[in-house]
């Protein structure tokens, strides 16, 4: 399959472009998404498809998501943008009480196949209200799907699937990853099914389970561990709901050790659910407790020197992986 090198931002743009080109039911709505104000993944699309299909809205997050739901009730496939994930609080009622539940509450009579694209600005010095990774909020709500791509290829493939998925999808983009380059299949319809984890690096000693920006740090940690003679497997979950439990269990059954990594706060983060599943299913196979590396439980600080202490980095992941390889006697604290 022919591939092209592009940034994640370009890959997301390609997915939106393909969806708009191939299906008249698709339209985009959000703040500053139309040209000339657009600077992110929607850049150029209003020029190509018109402002009827790439709709700039007032700063009204509840109405953006509510309007997406209404159009979806009538058969459209809206893609709403919540510019920065911290702003999604304004729209949570529409997401949680409406989009997520309409299929069930109506016995299947109405559905809300919307996609909500949103961006995490963590690590950019923007402070605590423009930086949060809130994916765990939405994992907790039956009816929602939660997707967090880490590579340009996955961003293209997963966004294409999300847009055409019959259920509401929270699609979490990461600003710090948007400039990263990678190979993406040139076929415009390229899609990756939701709910399939991907082993980005095979290994045999410990499984580093990550998603989103955590994958970058986990990959770096794996190469540092290799220098120490530790063969880490790097598993990219890609979607948190549906969660590919089988691939995760297959990996950890082999390596018997796991470290979960994410930019969301560690306490009650996605890693807590993953660690719980691993111990429920693999208690007898595990030779060490499942470790979690997540953001510290503080509002994200603005100063870079403080910020560096909050997010997971390769060093902390290496340390966590080493602990899973220590003899049990050394682990007692």
């Amino acid at each position: 399959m022919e591939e092209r090198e592009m940034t994640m931002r370009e890959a997301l743009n390609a997915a939106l472009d393909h969806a708009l080109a191939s299906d008249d039911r698709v339209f985009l709505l959000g703040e500053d998404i139309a040209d000339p104000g657009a600077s992110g993944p929607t850049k150029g699309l209003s020029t190509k498809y018109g402002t009827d299909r790439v709709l700039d809205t007032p700063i009204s997050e509840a109405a953006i998501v509510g309007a997406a739901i209404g159009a979806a009730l009538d058969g459209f496939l809206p893609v709403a943008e919540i510019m920065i994930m911290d702003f999604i609080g304004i729209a949570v009622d529409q997401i949680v009480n409406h989009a997520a539940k309409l299929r069930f509450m109506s016995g299947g009579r109405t559905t809300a196949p919307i996609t909500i694209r949103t961006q995490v600005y963590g690590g950019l010095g923007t402070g605590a209200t423009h930086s949060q990774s809130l994916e765990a909020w939405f994992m907790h709500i039956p009816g929602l799907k939660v997707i967090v791509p880490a590579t340009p290829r996955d961003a293209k493939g997963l966004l294409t699937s999300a847009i055409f998925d019959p259920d509401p999808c929270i699609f979490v983009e990461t600003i710090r990853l948007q400039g990263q380059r990678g190979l993406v299949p040139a076929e415009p319809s390229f899609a990756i099914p939701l709910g399939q984890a991907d082993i980005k690096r095979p290994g045999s000693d410990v499984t580093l389970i990550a998603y989103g920006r955590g994958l970058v740090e986990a990959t770096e940690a794996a190469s540092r561990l290799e220098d120490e003679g530790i063969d880490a497997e790097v598993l990219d979950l890609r979607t948190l709901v549906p969660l590919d439990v089988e691939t995760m269990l297959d990996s950890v059954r082999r390596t018997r050790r796991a470290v979960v990594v994410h930019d969301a706060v560690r306490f009650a983060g996605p890693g807590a659910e993953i660690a719980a599943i691993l111990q429920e299913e693999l208690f007898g196979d595990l030779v060490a407790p499942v470790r979690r590396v997540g953001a510290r439980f503080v509002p994200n600080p603005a100063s870079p020197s403080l910020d560096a202490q909050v997010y997971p980095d390769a060093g902390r992941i290496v340390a966590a992986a080493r602990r899973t390889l220590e003899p049990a006697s050394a682990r007692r604290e």
Partner: protein
Amino acid sequence: MATDSGSQRRLYELMVLMKAADDRLSKGIATGELLCVYWPSRGQEAIAAALGLCLRPDDQLLTTYRGLHDLIGKGVPLLEIFGEMLGRQVGASRGKGGTMHIARPESGVMLSTGIVGAGPPVAVGLALAAKRRGLDRVTAVSFGDGATNTGSFHEAANMAALWDLPVVLVCQNNQYAEMTPTEHTMKVERVADRALAYGMPGVRVDGNDPLAVVASLRQALERARSGGGPTLLECLTFRFRGHYFGDPMAYIPKEQLAAAQAADPLPRFRSHLTGTGVCTEGELDDIEAAASARVEDALAAALAAAPPSIDELDSDVYGDPTHCPA
């Protein structure tokens, strides 16, 4: 435009059916015969009947947890409503949604929400869809006075006006937001005055007079249908049974309740119909008897129906059941 006698008769039929359903549910819940939750619409029938008369079958309606009258007006079968309230398989959502969450797209009822103020944004999206498709369908969204204090209402009203969307915002101002009187929750005296802030017409009408509501509603619908954009239609009314069924209504002054009951839209419209010769007393008696019989039949059928299968828990969470976490 005057409302012809056939339409007046139809309004009365709808109002009577709404009242009969409310009365029967209230009696059943009070005696313990019916186990269900209910937010009563008694007193607000004239508004819902006007919506029922004026909306075309392809027009859409969104309502709230206090939606019994609206649902009946738009043609949701009584069996589906009662069945849903009682948690039966014959309910609109096979018992999975409950009283507050009835939708029936075949009747144009796209959403009932349990969240105050949540309907207008969804109405914006439905109207946007109609505009995109080039349809002259209108989306009416019904809510209470309390909803107009939410950010969600404000966002949606602004958006609907900004994009000239075919929406009618129908405020059923029953003078209480749950247990708090309207004058304690907003500085403006008239909800309709809020329309000025959005650049849309705001109209206040006597919500206990079905003919007055019809006249204003027709103008709003015509405006929306012809591309003129949304209207905020405030219908002043009262709820006779409080916020939820069983509400002791300690917060409602007795004189206010007595005055509201004296202005009950049902006997008032009945007098109008007989006084103007549109219907005879006998015809109206027949309408009332027929409504009671329909309610009894539907309720008996709902009570006799099976509860939903346990398997229902595994369906409709996601399109693909395998996507549901264990």
